[in-house]
């Protein structure tokens, strides 16, 4: 049943993906003043280069043929040549930058989810206290604040006032100038480490769930294996000669992650609060209380666990919002991911790159959607069966 559900969702997402690419194509190519006109009027390209690009991408063909070609090209990752990085293919640029965005987004999102979840939970549980009032207001402010404004203040506060975090770029050039290491490789290793830690957490959770019925034993298995893996990987990076470079990248990541977290936690918090307030009125909460379960168990195991479902749903709906916030964040922190690429290429009138970045931003959102759908199915048994 679960597999069938997931299969269904994957199919739906695939269809959505095709529709999405089609929309982007028609908006970029079919409009007067679309890609072709822009291409021809681009002064940076020699007539020969223009001719080559037009031929390579069949820009003189009828529109529907172009569309078929375009679809084929997108799904074979043939996205054209970047104007501003001519002759680097668009896909190479995207392949380099996409992981950076994925990492930034995933880490920030996870933190935002847990912070929003935990604070929304305690807001609802401690209803009517001053802390509830204050945190709700702070939440609403961070939720509605104009993102660049927030970033200016963050930059000033952490970068200048406290002076603890680096502001520009994705790494510190002074450090990297003495090495021939490729930052991209280090970055991918960081990603790999995180992936391994994540997998260990997941597996140990499932193992604990399967082989023990005591909450304490389960916790022990989970935390022990997680801590061991984390310690081990930190140790590994520590002794490895490139650890310092990894640390540099991570250090540069803190501020952007913090920003995206602040942008998105409040939405989670407010939904969790409302959902929790609804849930604690439910009859099964009264039952849980009547069973003599300690308050904490009623709150966490029964109320919060059930109240979490709308938060996850809401998260799908706010994906677009968070991605937009991500674009602004990346640009202002010069974090060279998809968002910054999108903006820079647009400003440089590098349309193949801009279109590629746009398509992959969409693909990324769709995959995030799929991931959340699958997680939701695990969380809500009513969907699973």
């Amino acid at each position: 049943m679960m597999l069938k559900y997931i299969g269904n969702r994957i199919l739906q997402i695939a269809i959505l993906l095709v529709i999405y690419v089609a929309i982007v194509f028609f908006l970029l190519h079919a409009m007067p003043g679309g890609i072709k006109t822009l291409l021809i009027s681009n002064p940076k390209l020699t007539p020969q280069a223009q001719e080559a690009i037009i031929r390579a991408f069949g820009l003189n063909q009828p529109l529907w043929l172009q569309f078929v070609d375009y679809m084929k090209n997108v799904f074979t990752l043939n996205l054209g040549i970047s104007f501003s990085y001519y002759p680097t293919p668009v896909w190479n640029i995207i392949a380099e930058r996409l992981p950076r965005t994925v990492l930034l987004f995933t880490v920030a999102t996870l933190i935002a989810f847990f912070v929003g979840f935990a604070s929304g939970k305690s807001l609802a549980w401690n209803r009517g206290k001053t802390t509830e009032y204050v945190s709700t207001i702070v939440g609403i402010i961070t939720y509605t604040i104009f993102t660049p404004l927030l970033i200016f203040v963050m930059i000033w506060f952490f970068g200048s006032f406290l002076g603890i975090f680096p502001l520009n770029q994705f790494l510190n050039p002074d450090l990297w100038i003495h090495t021939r290491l490729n930052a991209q490789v280090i970055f991918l290793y960081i990603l790999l480490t995180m992936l391994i830690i994540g997998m260990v957490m997941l597996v140990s959770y499932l193992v604990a769930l399967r082989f023990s019925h005591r909450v304490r034993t389960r916790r022990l298995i989970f935390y022990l294996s997680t801590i061991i893996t984390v310690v081990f990987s930190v140790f590994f990076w520590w002794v490895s000669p490139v650890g310092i470079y990894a640390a540099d990248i991570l250090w540069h990541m803190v501020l952007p992650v913090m920003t995206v977290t602040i942008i998105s936690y409040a939405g989670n918090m407010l939904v969790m609060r409302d959902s929790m307030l609804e849930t604690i009125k439910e009859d099964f909460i009264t039952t849980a209380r009547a069973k003599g379960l300690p308050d904490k168990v009623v709150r966490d195991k029964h109320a919060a666990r059930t109240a979490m479902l709308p938060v996850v749903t809401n998260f799908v709906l706010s994906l677009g919002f968070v991605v937009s916030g991500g674009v602004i964040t990346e640009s202002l922190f010069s974090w060279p991911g998809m968002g910054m690429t999108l903006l820079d290429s647009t400003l440089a009138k590098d349309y193949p790159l801009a279109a590629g970045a746009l398509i992959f931003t969409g693909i990324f959102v769709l995959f995030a959607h799929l991931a959340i759908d699958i997680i939701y199915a695990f969380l809500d048994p009513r969907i699973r069966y």
Partner: protein
Amino acid sequence: MKAVLEIKNLKMYYDTQAGQVKAADDISFSLYEGESMGLVGESGCGKTSVSMSIMRLLPENARIISGNIFFGGKDIVKLSNEEMNKIRWAGISMIFQAAMNSLNPVYRVGDQIIEAITTHEPDVTFEEARQRVASLYKLVGLDPERMDNYPHEYSGGMKQRAVIAMSLACNPKLIIADEPTTALDVIVQDTILRELEKIQKKLNMSMIYISHDIAVIAEVASKIAIMYAGKIVEMSDSVTIFKRPAHPYTVGLMSSFPSIRGAKKELVTIPGEPPNLLNAPDHCRFAPRCPFATDECWKKEPSYEEIEDNHFVACFHPQNLKKQVRANAG
């Protein structure tokens, strides 16, 4: 016989913006081991408020003003929440009005019962707990294999049975069943109530049945208390209540519901609105709807008195009595 539960002059009020709601006003009764009692009254007369006071699961705006609730030698009213948690389910368990929603949708039904067992008996292993749940399932007529299903995979009747099984999980001395079958169709209702009665007799537990339907209660309870507007207005064994209902409200209740067994009586509903418990008056609360009301009834509240052996009534003009204890009002 020993009293399992003894309530003395319990007053529980809700504070609302509009004023005080006297949902339980001077409630007293006791319940003996193995005895089953019915608490009957129209909706809104305070039955749930009484049962929630016993469980100490009151909403924030509720206050127990005075009175005692003795259970197992302790006054529940004075216990801390932690101490109370030990009594909940292990001593007193409950079958709720809305059994449909009493199960958490995200956990397996069996696990929700096991949770109750392991909370109160930490030494029980998981396997033992599962064994117990399986035998409870058999007792209430459920297939033990359904333990690992989720609530949404159960039908309404099955959920009700599961909830009953859950209430039995820790061998409580007392079970409060608050309108346990209201949401079910009549036939299922009847079977479940009878099974509940059988289980109660078999395990020799005490039981409080709460319902707005006196006919349903009379089938299963040995003693009946009639509640009206936050007060108990009549109490006796079921036979007496049925043969000689003394309070006009009880008479009205009985004629408004056709008896399941007896010949179909004419359906007479009690005229008038159910009372508003907000800022209760100081005359007989039933007076506005009572066909026998006299001036006296509008002046003061009738006291709660034993009019015959083990038959208590709060009314100036008790009905249907062979031997009239009170000659006249005074």
